[in-house]
């Protein structure tokens, strides 16, 4: 589904990603771990198309076609979803209206007619229950006055509504208490399917107790320096990132 080859990216002329390779197949969950400043969030932002991130080398293919050539909205329409580390508050834009607009633009891109209002509301209700998102929050302005946990849960609700092929969760676990983490994880597990894939960007192993990954990668200094299965995460937890730094730098 996703094929990243030799990806180099920089922000304000500072090189962050320095030759990253990653293959993600449909049905898989990949966790990307790494110390602060290793380039984890940069990867998410580059894939979503944030302007400040400049790709200097390498390629990213989504189902064989060049993802980097697309605008952020076209990437989303092709099925890429970034759950933001810091979701933005937009007072005055209702959550529901926002989702309706997003869904109808994605559908129009695929040549589908807009959803009937009734079907849309049915879907909203169904997905709210699936990811345990409070109906009262869904009707409010987008993230306005939401707690950190509520914002993260809204990201998962949006993910459920938009049904992307590839979801990238950028430190969705950060700032969540254990109950919120469980709810978010349960939501993601419900959404896992044979035709979609997840990339979990996280600093801690904690999330991976709830969402069990097929692969764990360690990102350090802009490259994936180690890949393995979920046991790698446990090893990391035990030995700390210094262990990686030492082995790589040596």
């Amino acid at each position, binding site marked *: 589904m996703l094929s990243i080859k030799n990806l180099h990216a920089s922000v304000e002329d500072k090189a962050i990603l320095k030759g990253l390779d990653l293959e993600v197949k449909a049905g898989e969950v990949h966790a990307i771990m790494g110390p602060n400043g290793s380039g984890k969030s940069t990867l998410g932002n580059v894939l979503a198309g944030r302007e400040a991130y400049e790709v200097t080398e390498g390629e990213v293919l989504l189902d064989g076609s060049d993802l980097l050539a697309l605008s952020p909205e076209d990437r989303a329409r092709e099925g890429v979803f970034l759950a933001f580390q810091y979701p933005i508050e*937009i007072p005055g834009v209702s959550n529901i209206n926002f989702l309706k607009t997003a869904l109808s633009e994605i559908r129009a891109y695929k040549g589908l007619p807009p959803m009937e209002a009734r079907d849309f509301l049915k879907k909203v209700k169904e997905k709210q229950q699936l990811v345990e998102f409070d109906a009262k929050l869904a009707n409010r302005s987008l993230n306005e006055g939401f707690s950190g946990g509520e914002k993260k849960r809204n990201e998962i609700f949006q993910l459920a509504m938009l049904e992307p092929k590839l979801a990238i969760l950028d430190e969705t676990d950060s700032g969540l208490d254990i109950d919120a983490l469980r709810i978010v994880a349960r939501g993601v597990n419900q959404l896992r399917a044979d035709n979609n894939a997840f990339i979990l960007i996280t600093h801690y192993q904690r999330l991976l107790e709830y969402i069990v990954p097929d692969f764990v990668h360690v990102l350090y200094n802009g490259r994936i320096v180690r890949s393995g299965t979920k046991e790698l995460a446990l090893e990391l937890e035990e030995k700390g990132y210094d262990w990686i730094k030492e082995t790589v730098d040596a």
Partner: protein
Amino acid sequence: MLDEAATDTMITQISDSLYTHLIKTYDGNLPSAGLHSLDEIRTQAFERFKSMGFPTVKQEDWKYTNVQPLIGQRYSLDTEMPSGTPALDKALIPKLDAHRIVLVNGRYSSELSTDEEIPGLQIMPIEQAFDRLCFAKYFAAYADKTDNPFVALNTASFTSGLFIEVGKSRQLQKPIHIIHVAATDKPLFTQTRNLYVMGAFAEAEIIESFITEDGAEHNLNNQVSEIVLRENAKLQHYYLQVAGPQSNYLNHTEVHQEKHSLYNNYNCSFPGAAFVRNNINVQMGDSEVESHLYGIALTAGNQLVDNHTIVDHIKPHCESYEWYKNITQDTSTAVFNGKIFVRLDAQKTNAFQQNNNMLIGEKSAIYTKPQLEIFADDVKCSHGCTIGQFDNEALFYLRARGISEAQARVLLVHAFAFDVTSRFLNAAVREYVEHLVEEGL
């Protein structure tokens, strides 16, 4: 033969500047209805206008709003009805059920207006109201106390306009929709004078739309509206500026409120009219008066929209609430000047003012000046002012969900305008304005 030529010159020959043209036309020859008192008011007003002249950018109130290019042009002063019937579709508000009044170049059109008897409601061309008691009482009573030279000029030489009186305790079931049409095949200067009197305990809603007929020539419209609310009266008043680029407006609205009355003004300008200057002055003439002034200006092209407001707290226990939003695109300019006076007697005043601006066009400009002058000591007054641009983080967030950049901008401007549009009591007007915001981007 000679005489005829002279008269002809008077009407159609156009002088180099509007000022000389006006002086030549009206000095010693002001319009008269044969009423001594009115003639007297007009003569005095004309003298005031002559001594003040047109304003220049050297005057604080006109610093960012240069009228010189407008008054340096040639105009006809002849506001006779144009031939043919102007189309009104540009002013139509979906789902609005209202009494419709149409003024073409300031003149009341009985043909285009809905003609129905409504108990307690008097609507007529202003020239038919000269002998009314409340005309004598309120005409030029407040607006002419200001130092706006365009008011003096209007008082002296207006030729048409609208008179509305809502009788005591009358509550109108339907809004009154006034459509001002600019329709002319020659450059035209119009002067319209309106007087709206709300009787005690009366309640009404007045919606005014400004439109330009397709293919109309350049026009400059100097309109003065005087509004009086008697005790306990309530008026919801909407201005919807949707005219074309040929049209230019100097609108002065002077509101005088008596005890326990409520006046709400919703002032909206959209891309189109090249030049719009609104003066909206609210005089809270007695205690326990409440006023709300909401404004939204979405500008484009090379437009200038200038809103000058004054809220004058004269007596105690009054409440005013003002919120204006400007969104400027391209090379347009928006000006906001909000003056609030809290006089010595006006204890327990509650005055709020907020002005938020969003600069979209890199070459657009916003000039904003909140001005509070407080002479009483037991009052609650607050004001705030912000200037910003599109929030790129918010834009990216929306785009990352599949929303196009254009649609994301629409959503964000909607959101920006929401504080103001959400206050519109009339749902049909609110929906219409939200639609115009979307269209205007």
